[in-house]
């Protein structure tokens, strides 16, 4: 003990060379933003080093490119429907550009072809019917065949809709999918990163150096930068693809809405990232991330399904464009459709910003109060109270 103290004790001048004084300027008091920058930088470096991340990004890029290219190929084609024509009905089908007739010797052969999937419908003569034919489908009425054979009156619209509904559907699907994929990918990344720090306990060392707020901010910024970079890469790729395949018409209509999408996504993702980080901080093991982040995942999935199913319903779209969690998808969609007044995106963005600020505030509270609590899942009420 004191009588057995190490020799260096008696002679402080023999201090370890690694404890020498340092050149001035090599060290300064750590500042909040320096810490945030380092933490964000680490998140990005580690993500770029992950093979899984690089591969999934490559696959996503390829999917975007493929859909643009395929869109141009199929868009150029006339679609025809194969029908089996039973002898006697051919006069009705032969001149129809939308139908591709396949001759069948009798009703039995035609039914075999239909059941085998070789044709989509059967057109057979029926003397008793007013049109002289009957159309057979397999399990549902063959609407495309029926409409091809129907006689339609000429339709004139007084106020034609600006956009083609098919195109509207594709754009809705595109916004929805990109938002959904990016938010889930980077949301779960941030959740894993939080739990990794908890599980390995490095968080104790980190918290003795930087504040929980700096840690959370760095994580959110690092992952938001990555998410934005991915979104921008997708946007650039899609636009280049559209130009190369000559689909300029589509491009012209999309421009403004894509810009709004990027702006809304940036804010919306920060909000989601804070919520993902906060909920993940409540558990201590990687296996529990899925269950604890489910509510946040739902917030990401619901807008995706809503925009896919209700992109032709102005009421639903209007509500979506103001609810913060669906605004990143809903408002650009309405801008694209031309439904939104010029001021509407700004109002919605203000609501989103306010909600994001609230989410970050609550998220930081939960995060700070849960980070050092290991073992069973921290109850939400306790995490909020501290």
């Amino acid at each position, binding site marked *: *003990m*004191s*009588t*057995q*103290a*190490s020799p*260096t*004790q008696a*002679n*402080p001048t*023999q*201090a*370890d060379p*690694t*404890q020498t004084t*340092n*050149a001035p*300027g*090599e*060290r*300064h*008091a*750590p*500042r909040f933003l*320096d*810490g945030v920058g*380092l*933490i964000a930088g*680490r998140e990005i470096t*580690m993500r770029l*080093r992950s093979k899984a991340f690089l591969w999934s990004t490559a696959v996503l890029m390829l999917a975007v490119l493929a859909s643009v290219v395929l869109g141009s190929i199929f868009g150029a084609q006339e679609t025809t429907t194969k029908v089996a024509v039973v002898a006697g009905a051919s006069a009705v089908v032969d001149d129809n550009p939308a139908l591709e007739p396949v001759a069948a010797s009798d009703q039995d052969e035609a039914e075999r072809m239909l059941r085998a999937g070789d044709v989509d419908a059967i057109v057979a003569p029926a003397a008793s019917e007013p049109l002289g034919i009957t159309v057979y489908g397999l399990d549902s009425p063959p609407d495309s065949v029926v409409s091809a054979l129907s006689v339609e009156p000429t339709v004139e619209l007084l106020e034609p809709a600006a956009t083609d509904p098919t195109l509207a559907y594709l754009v809705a699907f595109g916004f929805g999918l990109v938002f959904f994929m990016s938010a889930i990918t980077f949301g779960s990344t941030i959740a894993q990163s939080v739990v*990794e*720090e908890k*599980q*390995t*306990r*490095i*968080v*104790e*060392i*980190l*918290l*003795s*150096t*930087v*504040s929980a707020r700096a840690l959370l901010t760095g994580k959110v910024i690092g992952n938001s930068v990555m998410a934005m970079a991915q979104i921008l890469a997708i946007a650039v790729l899609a636009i280049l693809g559209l130009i190369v395949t000559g689909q300029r018409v589509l491009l012209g209509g999309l421009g403004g809405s894509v810009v709004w999408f990027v702006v809304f996504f940036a804010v919306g993702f920060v909000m989601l990232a804070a919520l993902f980080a906060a909920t993940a901080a409540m558990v201590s093991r990687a296996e529990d991330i899925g269950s604890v982040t489910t509510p946040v995942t739902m917030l990401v999935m619901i807008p995706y399904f809503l925009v896919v199913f209700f992109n032709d319903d102005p009421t639903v779209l209007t509500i979506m464009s103001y609810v913060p969690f669906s605004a990143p998808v809903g408002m650009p969609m309405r801008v694209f459709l031309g439904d939104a007044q010029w001021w509407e995106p700004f109002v919605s963005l203000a609501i989103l910003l306010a909600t994001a600020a609230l989410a970050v505030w609550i998220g930081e509270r939960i995060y700070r109060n849960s980070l*050092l609590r290991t073992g069973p899942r921290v109850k939400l009420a306790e995490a909020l109270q501290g």
Partner: protein
Amino acid sequence: MLELHDVTKRYGERLALDAVAFTVGDGRLTGFVGGNGAGKTTTMRIILGVLAADRGTVTLDGRHVTEADRRRFGYMPEERGLYPKMRVLEQTVYLARLHGWTPAAARRNALELLDRLGLGERTNDTIESLSLGNQQRAQIAAALVHRPEVLVLDEPFSGLDPMAVETVQSVLSDAAASGAPVLFSSHQLDIVERLCDDLVIIADGRIRAAGTGDELRAEHGTERWELLMSGDAGWLRQAPGIRVDAFDGGWAVFEAESDAARQAVLSEAVARGEVVSFTREHTTLAQIFKEVVR
């Protein structure tokens, strides 16, 4: 000088720390000893500000410890952890930079320290690829890379082989020699006894004893004497003011009522035959610990 005053912490109904107070002097290696669940880890977390105390203060040189002060603390938590997929050097440099070091200086510090800890060959390996012992060394590097001015280490010696124990001992001694207060906990009482200048013993959230080894021995150790002589020492049983605790032929351990009684024993022994040794029994830390926490 790091001082704790009246530090109290409750977890629900349980009183984890009850008015804990002790001092870690500048340049003093202070051992923090206690059973499992005695409150060592909670105390250390409070010193580092990772946990808030319900009451009480932690001061450094008489001033309340601030966030800025704590950036100059080195901390090794009880449960180990570094980023598994980061490389050893990269991780150590990252932690130094979080503490405010420039990239070049952080790298230089990290390389020097890793080399000294025997990880010079492993700087580009990921943490998860290291053996447990080497992970432990990396953990020590993480606590020291920013050249802390106060060290708080929770069980720095657990899981180390004897070589590594020696390396870490010398690193800690050097840190103390440069004037830093060093507090570390350990279950390995022999290491604590060999290494420490001061001791703090905690049990059930209360400080039971604190001071230098000699002070603790004087206060809590029983004063016993050991005699080894040629011939039989049976006469000791009849000696005035003497209580024999153990006896075997020419060897005996006894307590003496007074210095005079003890001196009388020695004279008598010399008169009766050849005295091989006559020493004060060294009370080990383990004995003091058991005595104090009982």
